[in-house]
């Protein structure tokens, strides 16, 4: 297991390096720099800024200096938030995004798992068709449609919740549901598929034959195998949660990292873009590794491969 983790971490290094290189040159190729503002700035100030943020050095120097800064976690000051570094921004705002993502995942699992299990257990009945058609609706309604709709109904018409902000717990409900509902639908479908497959296995028949109650057969015996597709879905789901957070944080004005990334891209803050992209990439690589480890723990067959 340790070897597996080490190999995966070793593979992560060239990946991160490649991402760094691509991102570095992509942001340099973008038109407009971090100092191109609507108001003209006096040339000597611009000169000073260019000097201070190191944009006057040759490109290779900048490339390796920035790389070294990311390796040693000694970040340069940001152009869009003078005095702060990317570390400050990420440390400040990522917990918000993380909380949003975790709440969304709780919503998704709390809705998706029971629906999927029930649909598989009562296959081809109304308890299967009705929630599964609903899940299809959930998949086809993108975040940026559900979000405004929920805000309109619960925030504006009913007046129960705030439609923007991130202060009280009730402010979390709308963003987390918006982000979670899509995954609830997806998880319901995956759970149903996985459960149907395991419920047809011989060991389930044995469990029934020995007289185990149906509830125990479904929840204890079948769920362990049936949940596998959901576990492997968590890797891609994380990437989706990140992109989803861009949209949801924009809709509900949540002060998370996603919104800052979009802002950084729009204001051409090279350093913040680079750090955020690398941070997201590292996050996803680690998450995928954890997903793989959990899969190995759950499925003995994979252990010896």
């Amino acid at each position: 297991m340790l070897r597996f983790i080490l190999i995966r971490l070793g593979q992560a290094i060239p990946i991160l390096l490649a991402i760094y290189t691509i991102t570095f040159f992509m942001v340099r190729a973008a038109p407009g720099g971090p100092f191109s503002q609507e108001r003209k700035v006096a040339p000597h100030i611009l000169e000073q800024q260019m000097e201070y943020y190191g944009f006057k050095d040759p490109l290779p120097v900048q490339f390796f200096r920035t790389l070294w800064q990311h390796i040693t976690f000694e970040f340069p000051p940001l152009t869009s938030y003078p005095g702060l570094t990317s570390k400050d921004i990420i440390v400040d705002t990522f917990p918000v995004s993380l909380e949003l993502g975790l709440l969304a995942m709780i919503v998704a699992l709390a809705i998706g798992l029971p629906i999927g299990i029930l649909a598989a257990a009562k296959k081809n009945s109304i308890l299967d068709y009705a929630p599964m058609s609903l899940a299809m609706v959930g998949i086809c309604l993108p975040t940026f449609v559900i979000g405004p709709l929920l805000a309109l109904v619960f925030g504006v018409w009913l007046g129960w919740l705030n439609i923007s902000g991130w202060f009280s717990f009730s402010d979390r409900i709308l963003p987390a549901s918006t982000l979670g509902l899509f995954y609830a639908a997806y998880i319901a479908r995956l759970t149903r598929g996985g459960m149907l497959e395991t419920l047809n296995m011989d060991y389930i028949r044995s469990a029934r034959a020995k007289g185990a109650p149906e509830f125990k057969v479904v929840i204890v015996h079948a769920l362990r195998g049936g949940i596998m597709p959901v576990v492997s879905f968590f890797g891609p789901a994380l990437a989706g949660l990140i992109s989803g957070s861009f949209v949801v944080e924009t809709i509900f004005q949540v002060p998370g990292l996603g919104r800052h990334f979009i802002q950084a891209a729009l204001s051409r803050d090279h350093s913040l873009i680079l750090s955020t992209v690398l941070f997201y990439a590292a996050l996803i690589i680690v998450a995928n590794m954890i997903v793989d480890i959990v899969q190995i723990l759950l499925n003995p067959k994979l252990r010896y491969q």
Partner: protein
Amino acid sequence: MSSRKDIELIPARSPWRDAWLKLGKNRLAMFGLGFFATMVVLCYACPLFYPHSPTSQTLSLGATPPLSMGIELRYDAESEEADEVITVKEFADVYASNAEEEALRIRNGEVIDVDGLIFSKSSRIHILGTDGHGRDLLARIFQGGRISLGVGFIATFVSLLIGVFYGAVSGYLGGKTDAIMMRLVDVLYALPFLIFVILLMVVFEGSDHQLFLIFLAIGAVEWLTMARIVRGQVVNLKNQDFVEAARATGVRTFTIILRHLAPNILGPVIVYSTLLVPAVMLLESTLSFLGLGVQPPNASWGTLIKEGAEKMMVYPWLLFVPATFFSLTLFAMNFLGDGLRDALDVKSSKD
């Protein structure tokens, strides 16, 4: 040919014909196909017959709700053409003395004189209302649909080309090459691609080719699953006898892939492409919603939903109408894809 003439030869039914018949029995899938076809025809053919242009503005008719009428205002009884077209609300607020009753009479076709101003029903009807600039919403939806569907088709085609080629080569060559190529796909899979598409959009912001670049960027991102599916098929196929025979007779690798393998992997490719179109449309709309995709004066369903979401508190139909069109189209495509999967008997790749 049979030697006996009285035997009636029944033409064999091809697997494709079988699949088509099976699809025909699936009502949801047929609904999806019908809806989608209608949508395509409407979006691309509407400029030929629809009276309103998506770009012509009538500021006095800004943000009228669906099915509401416009009222023509003439400053004196002799003028042939209307001097102004106003909304019922403006008529009630500014001109009318007994708004409800007078508006009803206008609706019934009467011509009304209020303090020397002549009001009559306008022949202009905006079925789904207008947006804030008085542009016909349905016309804008058709215009947006052209772009959204266009992105869906073209980006799917791009990812189809890349994915099929990559997957076929990887699967056919096998061995170390295959392992490296597929490991690369695994790695790319794990990356947050929306981030790169966003960066790409930023890089090419404002260039004339932006729309084209959206096609390309999305296509370049979505080919991974296609490559996996095709590779899986090719690995299964390549050791079968007819491929062996072709190889033994000295057919070139490229020709084998093209002539012997390609037709056999068509089923899964069709199914996945059908499901890819809505996925791509979703991605494009997400970008447009974030303000990074299609830029005004062009519109896609994503930008229309974005505009609607900004004004939903006052003009909810500006959100509901494009959201409905968009969601129904995604629905239709997903049902069609699921139906095709059953009909072509493709083992599901995801769920």
